[in-house]
């Protein structure tokens, strides 16, 4: 029996999760929400995390009904992410690991998403679409690495959605992406936007600058409604994502897709992916907001796999890094 506690705080979510051999014992989380029209700044986000991390930690322990002595390993997000929030959470992980005399383990955030997705859905060896505020990657496992077959060559899809939300002053509560999704359901007219797929890579910056430029003109002339824009943006962005996923599947001969990351809980994206999968008799695996969106349990789960295969991070190496690619990690826990 192995129990791992995971600390996550690489962006505007702070979460602590506890995993015991594939079972989520607890997974509380808080989100730092900014006013409409504003993004979250690193220093403010770190302040938010510092102010509630201990409360979240207490909640995690209480809900799991365990004592610190029952824990085998303390995992935390080493990166990638925003520097200040990462540091604020890593410090707590380091401190409790020393207080409780437990080994420490730095985890790659992206690997956390993948391992959590695999655990929850039971997907064996899927092509992974990892889509969030900071990442857009199509990943497939081979020879001890999660290899990146396709990715954005500029901004992430979630970043594109978030920044579009700021243009239209769409609220950030509970998340800009969720509100865009709800508005898109009422959109009717399809506005043509740039569509940029380069092999298995995508580019979103052109779409963003186009829509930033045109949105107010089109709205004030009555050419379309904000709902139409949300609808058209989603349809275009998601079509690109489904297309590169399908390209990677065809290239790798894969018959499974797993969607992870915050944007992955968008039901329209899941719907489109499902249609694509059906057309090629493949299987789609997706999770809901509890596990798609950043959370502590995903760090605990990746930590659990790593710890069981012999990984540990000595205190002097327990730093964080803003840049940490998915394919840098040697995956020792899979064949």
């Amino acid at each position: 029996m192995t129990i791992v506690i995971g600390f996550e705080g690489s962006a505007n979510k702070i979460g602590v999760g506890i995993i015991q051999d594939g079972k989520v014992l607890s997974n509380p989380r808080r989100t730092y929400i900014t006013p409409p029209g504003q993004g979250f700044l690193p220093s403010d986000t770190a302040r938010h995390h510092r102010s509630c991390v201990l409360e979240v930690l207490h909640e995690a322990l209480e809900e799991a009904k365990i004592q610190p002595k029952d824990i085998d390993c303390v995992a935390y997000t080493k990166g990638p992410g925003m520097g200040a929030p990462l540091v604020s959470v890593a410090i707590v992980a380091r401190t409790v690991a020393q207080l409780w005399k437990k080994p420490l383990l730095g985890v790659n955030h992206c690997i956390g998403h993948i391992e959590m997705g695999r655990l929850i859905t039971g997907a064996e060896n899927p092509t992974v679409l990892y889509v969030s505020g900071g990442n857009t990657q199509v990943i497939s496992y081979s020879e001890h690495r999660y290899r990146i077959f396709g990715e954005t060559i500029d901004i992430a899809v979630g970043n594109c959605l978030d920044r579009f939300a700021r243009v239209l002053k769409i609220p950030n509560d509970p998340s800009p992406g969720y509100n865009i999704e709800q508005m898109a359901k009422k959109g009717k007219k399809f506005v043509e936007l740039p569509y940029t797929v380069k092999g298995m890579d995508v580019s979103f910056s052109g779409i963003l600058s186009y829509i930033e430029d045109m949105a107010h003109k089109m709205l004030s002339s009555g050419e379309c409604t904000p709902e139409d824009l949300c609808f058209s943006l989603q349809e275009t962005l998601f079509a690109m994502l489904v297309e590169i996923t399908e390209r990677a599947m065809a290239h790798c001969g894969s018959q499974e897709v797993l969607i992870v990351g915050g944007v992955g809980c968008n039901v329209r994206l899941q719907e489109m992916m499902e249609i694509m999968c059906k057309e090629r008799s493949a299987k789609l695996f997706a999770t809901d907001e509890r596990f798609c969106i950043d959370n502590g349990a995903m760090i605990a789960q990746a930590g659990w796999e790593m710890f069981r295969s012999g990984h540990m991070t000595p205190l002097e190496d327990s730093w964080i890094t803003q840049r940490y690619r998915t394919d840098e990690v040697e995956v020792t826990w899979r064949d």
Partner: protein
Amino acid sequence: MECQAESDSRQRTREYLAGLKLLKQGAEARVYQGKFLGKAAVVKERFPKTYRHPALEEKLTHRRTAQEGRAILRCRKAGIPAPVIYFVDYVTNCIYMEDIEGSVTVRDYIMTAQKNGRNLHDLAEKIGKILARMHDEDVIHGDLTTSNMLLRPPHQDLDLVLIDFGLSFISALPEDKGVDLYVLEKAFLSTHPNTEEIFSALLKSYSASSKKSSPVIKKLDEVRLRGRKRSMIG
């Protein structure tokens, strides 16, 4: 409303394709194999993607069918090996082209060669050379992977043929050529682990063969950095 001629044409195509052998379903098309006017042919059918909005679907599919035909023609005129196109049907978005009989994909060739410990240096040089010529013609392939290159039999002669030009376009910009190589590099290294050396031989041969390679390689370095340095949050 669709006119009678169009729906007749669709019907005829459906009947014709039903008599062919479905070779594979790629990412954006079904590929059939059979005879076309007595010649060994493959038919690439860009069937509608129902996950896409109909307006987007129609635009993309038509554009890609046209682009593929145009780029292949341009390549062949410049002596860059690509399949012969027999016929393009814009109503059903089908391209009828030469069947490269007995060919293997470079992807499979590399995998077998790696298993048998065969040297891949010559192949890398060959690919570099052909891509250099293609870029000198200002053709950007748009989807370079080792699955999109074939070897005619006998395979060891390295008679390379480029295919799948659906994402191609014409551009003289080093940026576009750099991204083209970047796309290949990522697909190459992720599909074939531990081939960094082979890929650098490919780039070397590209640089040596192309008249305009130095700004392209410089752009490639720039684009790589974009990938590496991208802040990755969330």
